[in-house]
């Protein structure tokens, strides 16, 4: 007889490509079920990626903003003394701050007390709309890196005359859209020379009307003391300079000067958002877990329904590991299907959200790869037990009707 000695060496073999084919065909045979259980995984992954993606996009936006605004702006403001009284800065504060080693440029504003800015003379006194009149030193625009939206900044000439530059919000409140219009300050008409763009690092400027120091002095009847000193500092030496500014401005009571770094406030706000992101990622992982249970459930049902097919395969020569691999492959494909859909969905949601907010779209590739890897781990875990059960089904099952 030929081939009789083949019993010993002919082995039962299942090619890897056939394992993949079996896994896919098992899903294709029941498409609705496959799609629904993959959907669970997809929603979990999409939620995770969207949460992380939106958070990183907003951080990318902040980084871009800080890069643009610079993190080397230090602000010194008048503080309050031991008794809660506000202590005004000396008139020379701007000049002394400018002399600190490491300060590249300095400028001041000083609020002019009890002086409202009105749209016209018919507006009753006191309806100031929260607009503060401030004097501005000539280099303020440069130090803040602020932009003029329309018109021009105060010049050495216009600073002496009844000329005003409005912050973005102040202009809107006064209904002034272009330079050349008039507003009323202390019963006199002032010409609006220009309107500023919003200044993110010094939001108080937005609600201010700015006049030259000479004009301010004539309004107040005396030189206006600076209330805030803005300094641009050598980026390498921000922390050292920060220590020096207060003692330089107020040598006798440095603690009465508040020195802040406005970019820190923006970063701190971002850090608060991070905590919230952690919570959302937690929720996303719960969704993913539920999705994984859905896959496990689908696989368990599939194994129960296919006892005869499993018996047939055993009769055709499948070993237990072959059956195990088939069902494991099916579970892996199922969750990978969900994973890919989830990555696409999550990326889409992030992109739409970020673009609608005007942020750059930023999703770390490691998050996408991690999302896919997570689905494979979930698929393997969810498929393991059903696959082991499938392999335990006795081959005689094929003959039972």
């Amino acid at each position, binding site marked *: *007889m030929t*081939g*009789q000695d*083949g*019993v*010993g060496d*002919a*082995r*039962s*073999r*299942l*090619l890897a*490509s*056939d394992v993949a*084919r079996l896994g896919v*065909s098992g899903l*294709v*045979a029941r498409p609705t079920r496959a799609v629904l259980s993959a959907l669970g995984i997809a929603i979990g992954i999409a939620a995770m990626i969207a949460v992380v993606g939106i958070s990183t996009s907003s951080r990318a936006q902040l980084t871009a903003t800080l890069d643009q605004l610079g993190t080397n702006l230090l602000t010194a403001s008048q503080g309050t003394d031991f008794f809660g009284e506000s202590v005004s800065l000396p008139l020379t504060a701007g000049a002394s701050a400018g002399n600190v080693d490491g300060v590249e440029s300095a400028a001041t504003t000083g609020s002019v007390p009890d002086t409202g800015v009105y749209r016209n003379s018919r507006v009753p006194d006191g309806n100031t709309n929260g607009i503060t009149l401030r004097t501005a030193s000539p280099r303020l625009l440069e130090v803040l890196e602020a932009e003029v939206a329309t018109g021009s900044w105060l010049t050495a000439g216009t600073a002496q005359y009844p000329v005003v530059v409005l912050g973005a919000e102040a202009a809107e409140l006064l209904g002034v859209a272009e330079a050349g219009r008039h507003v009323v300050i202390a019963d006199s008409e002032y010409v609006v020379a220009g309107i500023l763009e919003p200044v993110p690092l010094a939001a108080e400027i937005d609600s201010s009307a700015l006049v030259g120091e000479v004009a301010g002095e004539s309004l107040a009847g005396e030189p206006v003391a600076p209330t805030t000193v803005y300094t641009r500092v050598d980026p390498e030496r921000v922390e050292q300079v920060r220590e020096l500014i207060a003692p330089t401005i107020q040598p006798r009571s440095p603690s009465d000067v508040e020195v802040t770094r406005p970019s820190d406030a923006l970063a701190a706000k971002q850090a608060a958002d991070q905590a919230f992101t952690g919570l959302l990622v937690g929720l996303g992982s719960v969704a993913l877990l539920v999705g994984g249970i859905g896959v496990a459930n689908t696989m368990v049902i599939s194994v129960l329904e296919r006892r*005869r*097919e499993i*018996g*047939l*395969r*055993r*009769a*055709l*020569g*499948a*070993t*237990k*590991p*072959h059956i195990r691999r088939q069902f494991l492959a099916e579970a892996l494909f199922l969750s990978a299907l969900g994973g890919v859909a989830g990555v696409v969905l999550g990326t889409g949601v992030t992109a739409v959200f970020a673009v609608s907010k005007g942020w750059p779209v930023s999703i770390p590739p490691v998050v996408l790869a991690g999302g896919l890897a997570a689905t494979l781990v979930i698929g393997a875990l969810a498929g393991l037990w059903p696959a082991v059960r499938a392999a335990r089904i*006795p*081959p*005689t099952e*094929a*003959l039972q*009707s």
Partner: protein
Amino acid sequence: MSAVIELTGVTREYGRPPTTALDGVSLRVDHGEMVAVVGPSGSGKSTLLNVLGTLDRPTSGTVAVDGVDVATQSDAQLSALRAHRIGFVFQQFHLSDGVCATDNVADGLLYTGTPIRERRRRATEALHRVGLGHRLTHRPNQLSGGERQRVAIARAVVHRPPLLLADEPTGNLDSRAGEGIVALLHELHAEGTSIVVITHDVELARRLPRRVTIRDGRVADDSARASETATVSVGRPDLGAGS
């Protein structure tokens, strides 16, 4: 002639307290033989087929396939035996509705490690062999019962096994389709395949060269009759006799 499969004193019990499905069965099938196993339902026929096909192991007694004792073989080794040396035909066909006839037949080679192209080529060949060359791309639900059983037979013989085991192959078919299947089994036998057909159909059994009657888990009768086919079945050992 050597035995393609040989059972010696095989007993199979199930459950607790044990029910005896096979009770000391000794049966030897030689290469090139065609045997009908007949018996009423519940007589232990299906258990016998499971044991013959190495799908089930006996509680006691020995089963040898090509002289190799099944008891010494691991699950993987028995799987290999089935993949290469045994073909199964079932009463309910067990075809996959989602794929065409060719791919159903190609599955008969799935666990031999044969690449898909070669599997399909040989499946096409096998379908021609069973007279279904014109039904290659049809799905099982587009085929008649007789045609489905032919597809199942093609799957069972696509790897050219020395032994074909058929469990009530005509059980779900009308008499004309059944005739065709019997004729096909005779053809395969003529080509050299050893065939064991399990059936409760005495008419069908009468037309096979050798009949083994099972009753209550025992071999009640094992008598041969003059062969109608070209292949002479000389192997007619006495029960339990070695060669």
